[in-house]
């Protein structure tokens, strides 16, 4: 057997590594990624008629996602408070093609599109509301 002191050390290491992984994952979630392909999104493909004039908050959800409704409410509220900003919530449950196209590996995933429909920012997980507001303010000032 491992002696008790070593066993406790192994246990401590296990706890530390698991905590570390959790903290890194939590830290990466909700942070904006700017280095994304600036692809122009076609609203027709997503089942929407049009995109926002200055910006679009494009949220990807699934039926099985417990955190998507909360994010939906937050992003809707953000979009309502701003002129020309539209919030689109696309259900990927039956659209694996869209999920594959945008390489969505977790829901919610949120993309911020500029007035041209080009992807500017990507959030994996729950986006931080203040950061979303900041990104939108940047896009709005650029559009003016």
């Amino acid at each position, binding site marked *: *057997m*491992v002696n*008790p002191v*070593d*066993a*406790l050390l*192994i*246990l401590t290491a*296990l*706890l530390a*590594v*698991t*905590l570390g*992984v*959790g*903290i890194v*994952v*939590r830290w990466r979630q909700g942070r904006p990624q700017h280095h994304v392909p600036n692809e122009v999104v076609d609203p027709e493909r*997503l*089942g*929407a008629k049009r995109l926002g004039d200055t910006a679009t908050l494009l949220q990807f*959800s*699934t*039926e*099985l996602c*417990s*955190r*998507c*409704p*909360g994010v*939906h409410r937050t992003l809707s509220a953000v979009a309502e408070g701003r002129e020309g900003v539209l919030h*689109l*919530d*696309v*259900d990927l*449950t039956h659209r*694996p093609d869209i*999920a*594959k196209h945008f390489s969505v*590996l*977790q*829901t919610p995933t949120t993309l911020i599109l500029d007035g041209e429909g080009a992807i500017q920012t990507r959030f994996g997980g729950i986006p931080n509301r203040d950061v979303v507001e900041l990104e939108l303010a940047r896009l709005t000032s650029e559009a003016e």
Partner: protein
Amino acid sequence: MTRGSDAGQTGIDPRGPRFAAAITSVLLLVTVMLGLLGVSSARGSYGWFAYQPLADEVFAPSAWAVAQASPIERALDPGFLALLVVALLFVWGVLSPRTAPWAALFRTLVQPRLTPPTDLEDPRPPRFAQGVGLFVTAAGLVLHLAGVPWALPIAAAVAFAASFLNAVFGLCLGCRMYLLLQRAGIVGRARPGAA
């Protein structure tokens, strides 16, 4: 564009699985400790050694105690018994998630003291995650019975990491696997209302 409103009606409180994961992670941490202190990671100190004068070397058929132990000795190891309990709880969680002990405990003792959940969760991903936990722990049990050293504490440690991440960070790896498999079209294509 449409969100399944029917999914909300049949959902579960997402804090339930996290509560269960917290208890499971404590059990698994104890299991890792017992596994480390048990026969699984022990060197064969009481094993038989043959000294070959001509070859001038000590021949140890296996340096690991678990390989030398009889199957009954392997099965009576405290770490094995603890992991067996956790695996049986996973079986319960897969077969009948509603009546599983920690889910029942959550509903009767914890949930009445909390504010009502703001959003409900589909019960299928956490149930699938219980199955993943069962797979990992069962693999550890089988390998340990077969005399593989370290199988028990390593399997328990892997299962611990997953349940701890779920309990503390709300990060359910088994649920993610379910979503990836669903995306690949392997599981659960039907709508919740039709399932």
